[in-house]
């Protein structure tokens, strides 16, 4: 039995330790916001927070997260930070097909909580593991920049 916190709730699973966190949250917990784009750590669509650090859930065997605090996009939707990102992505036009977007939002939030006023290069580095095939990234970079400005002061709040 593996116990961990998922979106603020303590949960348990008896799935084998090698099961990918990605599959567990999608199949057992029916949280569909975490997407699979490659299954090899190369696209970022499956990004989640593990103890507040963004990681690729397709590479995480659940045996390694016992006791950890896991957050998926569903776990942050209600936060002030998400609302700012949501609005900024809309205003900047960062969303096209949408498949990369939940992962992008997680990477954006991770970046801003570490570095609330990133430079353009730092933004690009922050999302460099998140592949987006539709937008060419620039409007996503703009969105994060906008979120940094609009959300001044909220990023380091917990």
């Amino acid at each position, binding site marked *: 039995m593996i116990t961990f916190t998922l979106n603020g709730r303590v949960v348990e699973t008896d799935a084998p*330790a090698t099961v*990918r966190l990605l599959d567990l949250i999608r199949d057992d917990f029916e949280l569909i916001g975490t997407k699979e784009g490659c299954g*090899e*750590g190369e696209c970022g669509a499956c990004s989640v927070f593990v103890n507040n650090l963004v990681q690729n859930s397709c590479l*995480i*065997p659940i045996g*390694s997260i016992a006791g950890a605090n896991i957050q998926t996009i569903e776990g942050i939707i209600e936060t002030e930070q998400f609302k700012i990102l949501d609005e900024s992505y809309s205003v900047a036009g960062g969303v096209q097909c949408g498949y990369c977007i939940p992962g992008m939002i997680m990477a954006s939030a991770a970046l801003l909580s570490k570095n609330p006023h990133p430079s353009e290069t730092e933004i690009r580095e*922050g999302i460099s*593991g998140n592949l987006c095939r539709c937008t060419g990234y620039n409007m996503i970079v703009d969105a994060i920049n906008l979120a940094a400005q609009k959300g001044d002061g909220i990023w380091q709040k917990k």
Partner: protein
Amino acid sequence: MAEKVTAYRFDRIDETLSQLNREDCAIIAGGTDVMVLHKSRRGVPPKFSKPIVFIDHLSELKQVYQTDKDLHIGACCTYTELLEHPLIPTPIKSAIKTIAAPAIRNRGTVGGNICNASPAGDMLPLLYVYNAKVLLRSVNGDRFVAISDFIQGPRRIQRLHNEIVTEIILPSVLEEGTHVIFEKVGNRNADAIAKVSFAGFMRINKERIEDIRFAFGAVGPTMIRSREIEKKLVGKTLPLADAEIDTIVAEFDKIIRPIDDQRSTAVYRKTVALNLLRYFLSLKQ
């Protein structure tokens, strides 16, 4: 659903070591290499033929500290942790920044990079030129192995099945007066596996080369380093004459034998490796 697997995750390193002593296990640190290597197709967990043991939570394996001029890096330090640590030398930090992307750097460990022993492992060229030592621990105690002996080939390392790599030690790395560079050549600016990499190390005293080392990555089964060739440069004064540089390049030309694969060609790898070497040797200090 999925098949049964035995998995261990002990709170302490000694319990982990005793288990390893009892049975051969697959060690998982960050898992960023093993989860890809053992990957199944979509929707199915990766397959392991041995019991697995998780180690990346063990605090004993996550320390960075200094003894004298040596730097000790815990095997399970993640790249992110190292990037944020004040003791880690700048060249290592810049090499880390070329690895994957933030999410992978939040998981991948330096010990994993070494034990995975990929010819394209990006920590390795620098560790070679730093003369890094690997500290292995088992129920029987500790032993130190030079990195160049530890790594024997792609995915082949000198580890007994009851051992864990606990530390990587960089001797004298905190000394002043050395010039160290790392260059990685990948197909794009992030999330790229090296097609060629190069580390150069030089210690100079009044224009005179006191110590010089080179290591090349992704151009052979392991890092390419040659102490004989290096020795020929010790004592020379800078700037090196063209003929001296040509000789060194020609010597490496003989021992670098890369391959063609889906990422690049042998010709490219060799040409670029030698270009980077020549460039390093021609730099005005």
